[in-house]
């Protein structure tokens, strides 16, 4: 059995690319909890996790695989960090999970 994570139905999300003027700017991913009126700001690799989750349900392993290709690291090296992050998002009610 694998656990798949996705954004909860009461969550909105938005990717903001840096403006054309801001040559050194980085993209930012915003996640809003519509029930609790809370906004979470994701930077750095968090942006990739946010974008991956926005595409549909993902397991921690799948996210690690996607990030490992982008950042050229072994999936096993980052799997623990990703699981911690997903658990944190779950505890704040931004994500829902499903076992398949």
């Amino acid at each position, binding site marked *: 059995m694998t656990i798949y994570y996705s*954004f909860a139905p009461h969550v909105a999300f*938005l990717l903001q690319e840096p403006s054309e003027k801001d040559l050194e700017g980085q993209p930012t991913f*915003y996640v809003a909890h*519509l029930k609790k009126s809370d906004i979470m*700001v994701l930077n750095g690799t*968090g942006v990739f996790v946010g974008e991956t989750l926005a595409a549909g349900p993902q397991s921690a392993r799948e996210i690690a695989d996607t990030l490992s290709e982008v950042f050229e*690291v072994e999936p096993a090296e980052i799997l623990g*960090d990703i699981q911690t992050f997903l658990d*944190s998002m779950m505890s704040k009610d931004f994500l829902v999970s499903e076992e398949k």
Partner: protein
Amino acid sequence: MSLPTDSSLGDSLAHVPLEVRLRLAHAYFEYQAGLLAADVLHIKGYIFGTDTYPAQRTSSDVDLLVRPSHVDAFLAGLVKDGWEILSTFESGSIFEHASTIYHPVWGLCDIHRYFPGIGYENPEVAFTQLWEERRYKEMAGVPCATTSLLDSRLLVVVHGARTINVLTHPDILHLKETLDSETWAQMQKRAGELDALLAYDTALGNLEKHRKSPYYLMWKSVSEPVPAYVQWWARVTRVRGLKNRVRVILQIASINEDSLAMSLGHRPSKQEKRAWFYSRLRKLVAKR
């Protein structure tokens, strides 16, 4: 490699750009509309976007048009969810059409119970006409109900009619530059269907076609520079019945504390209220 840096709202709100916050707020309101079973159309601002407005146009709040029969329950639900009413419908503008509310996370929102210039005689019917033609546009991943493209452009024109020196309004000039004559003809036809011809004609410099309308003076007073007392007279004559006219006269004479508070950025003191009252009196005397 460091994994996701995230921060909760408390320490990061200042870093959320206004445009991002407003786009997320649209998603919030669509969610609330579902919870509160209210028919809500997102209008103007970022929801209309570049198919209606010039590309560089920015916005500072969210505007919602709510079915008149749903508006009280919707507003009560929002207050329960932490929104503060900055101005009531009655104190919001001379048209008494919108209430401004504020939330520390989502920012400012104008809740419209009708759209000035559209469906004066029956706002509920006008809302239904707009609602039946609605479309959905995605904001922060959430499909939000908004007016059809034709109705959106018509709303922009009608909204522009409430501007002094209306013929130079940038939003209307943009539509004049980008839309063909066939689209303008469709818009005019739609304005007729929505009981909006008076405001539509005002926006295009043809107000004089409506000299006999009971609302003529009202639209003249918001689209051309006129003395304050002309607008006050227009407000009194716009409403029907002695009771309503007395109410408007009392409103004009009294201090609009909500409006004054928004100008000052804080609730007015007795001294500030007094100063405002006398400045208004001076205005009246000077213009006569």
